[in-house]
């Protein structure tokens, strides 16, 4: 049972503010992922929760108890580091038992708890080994095991998979998800990989420049982003942002647009807030996977020049003007013969499109 509350948290190094006024509640048993580009403050925020960095202002409480000034080991949290940070001179068993030893757990009990955690992580054959005798995936498991044995209220993961190769990363990702459902513990996970964020999170916190841009479930962020940054960060390949001109409004409140890049003269899209004034030049957001086959009902037909094409087998990605800012990406299915230099006819449905202002807010 552990709920984490962060109120008005700030962190500054001299004049540089790396975390500005963060408010966040992580509910018991939730898997929350902090995601954002490098330097957005996600790791600093995690380290502040861990107690490895002190806050300039604000407070952090766990289960209603203010731990802002508590010693890291007294917060009831365990952390898994990106670099594993195993003690190289100790065996796997000693590594996993060190925290218990520090908190005064008797040797026999320690042994039992370490065995139990090792069983969960399939580490029993390696208990007598030193970290250097283990593979990357095994080391990462030991690092996780070291966290599990302490039975923490909250697990913190700082980019735990970024040192692993692609295949192992997928396997460990699934293991971490399973671990979360088995333990039912509160977990906070930092990553810059939006696939990890989408697949693991119950809720995602998108950070930029030390601020929370949006908090929501993966699908909320995907379908209903608050701004252009979140829209562009979630989803791969990235959402297309097409400059458009507002021509007027329909009676239902939809915005009538002229989309020069797609050759659309009269494209009507219902904004998030139908009564808000919208005019001038704005951006239309279309995800590559929302270009649908020609003839899909309820959509406008567009012709996209194919400047470059990537065939991945089941799907292909077409790029209209590769290398240029204005290039559009489209996901195409069932056209394995499409060649660069040709043209493709597709459909765009207004309900899959989003509108953003010049400054990036969602309209």
């Amino acid at each position, binding site marked *: 049972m552990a709920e984490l509350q962060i109120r008005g948290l700030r962190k500054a190094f001299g004049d540089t503010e790396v975390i500005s006024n963060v408010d966040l509640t992580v509910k018991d048993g939730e898997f929350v992922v902090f995601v954002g580009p490098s330097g957005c403050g996600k790791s600093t925020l995690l380290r502040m929760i861990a107690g*490895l960095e002190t806050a300039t202002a604000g407070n952090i409480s766990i289960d209603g108890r203010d731990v802002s000034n508590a010693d890291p080991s007294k917060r009831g949290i365990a952390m898994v*580091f990106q670099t594993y*940070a195993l003690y190289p*001179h100790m065996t796997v068993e000693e590594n996993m038992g*060190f925290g218990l030893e520090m908190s005064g757990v008797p040797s026999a009990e320690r042994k039992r708890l370490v065995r139990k955690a090792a069983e969960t992580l399939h580490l029993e054959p390696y208990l007598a080994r030193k*970290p250097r005798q*283990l593979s990357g995936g095994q080391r990462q498991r030991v690092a996780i095991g070291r966290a599990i044995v*302490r039975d923490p209220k909250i697990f913190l993961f700082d980019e735990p998979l970024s040192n692993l190769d692609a295949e192992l990363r997928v396997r460990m990702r699934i293991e971490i998800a399973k671990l979360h459902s088995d333990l039912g513990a509160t977990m906070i996970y930092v990553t810059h990989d939006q696939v990890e964020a989408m697949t693991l999170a119950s809720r995602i916190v998108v950070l930029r420049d030390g601020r929370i841009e949006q908090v929501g479930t993966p699908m909320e962020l995907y379908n209903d982003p608050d701004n252009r940054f979140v829209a562009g960060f979630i989803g791969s390949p990235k959402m297309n942002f097409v400059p458009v001109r507002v021509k007027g409004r329909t009676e239902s409140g939809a915005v009538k647009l002229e989309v020069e890049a797609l050759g659309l003269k009269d494209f009507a899209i219902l904004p998030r807030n139908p009564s808000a004034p919208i005019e001038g030049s704005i951006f239309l957001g279309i995800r590559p996977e929302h270009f649908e086959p020609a003839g899909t009902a309820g959509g406008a037909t567009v012709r996209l020049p194919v400047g470059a094409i990537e065939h991945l087998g089941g799907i292909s990605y077409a790029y209209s003007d590769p290398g240029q800012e204005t290039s559009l990406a489209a996901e195409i299915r069932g056209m394995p013969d499409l060649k660069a230099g040709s043209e493709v006819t597709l459909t765009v449905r207004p309900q899959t499109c989003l509108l953003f202002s010049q400054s990036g807010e969602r309209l």
Partner: protein
Amino acid sequence: MRRSLASNILLAFSITFLVLLIGLPFWWVLSGSFKLPQEIIARVPTMFPHSFTLQHFGKLLSGSDYPVYMANSLIVAGLSTVITLVLAVPAAYAFFRLAFPGREMLYRAILLAYAFPSIVVLIPLFGMFARIGLIDTLAALVIINVTFALPFSIWMLRSFFASVPKEIEEAAVMDGAPPTVILRRIMIPLVTPGIASVGIFAFISAWTEYVFASVLIVSDARRTVPVGFSGIIGQYQIDWGLLLAGAGLAVLPVVILFALVGRWFVSGLTEGAVK
């Protein structure tokens, strides 16, 4: 990596040259100490001894104060090494880990100890030691040796501490280990190569120290090997056999020390900790 024949030959030649440069004098001392006196001073020197005798060692160990000097030197060098390590390890960790005002200044200031040639500080130190009654004691030499070995030892150990990944310490903090436990259980085991290097450095500087030992020690019974040994040479004119035997024995403790701590110079001790 493939090297050409020419570069291989060059490397082999360089290594051979270095080995000869360093090894030959040792061989000369060692082989000479077992030669009969007439062979040592023979007009045509012999690379490999034609004679064998232990008379020089016998004379050195039973007919001179050499064993006493040796014991004094072992006490002085041993104690200096231990005290240097006991002080340098926590000091280096403090300089590395604790943030306190003036840390960088102090860190550089301690190296000032090497700014003055020992002969310059000899007279004031003699005065101070005379006042507190330390003249002619081995303790005086230990204090001097520790004082001069410490700054460099701290400086060197700090960079060894700095080479330990920060996350390992943070993991220990998260595990609830207090700083003293982190130092003892995590950091010290990870910097053993550094501790071994510093130990050898402290031992050798104490073992070979001459200037202070020659001035601060007055009585023959408290002399260390470098000073006492130079007396032996004068005492018997130049007895080459005795000189070579004494020099050979003087090297022995250092060689033994290297053999003992050599296995701690394991590179990549932190391998497997991160990545």
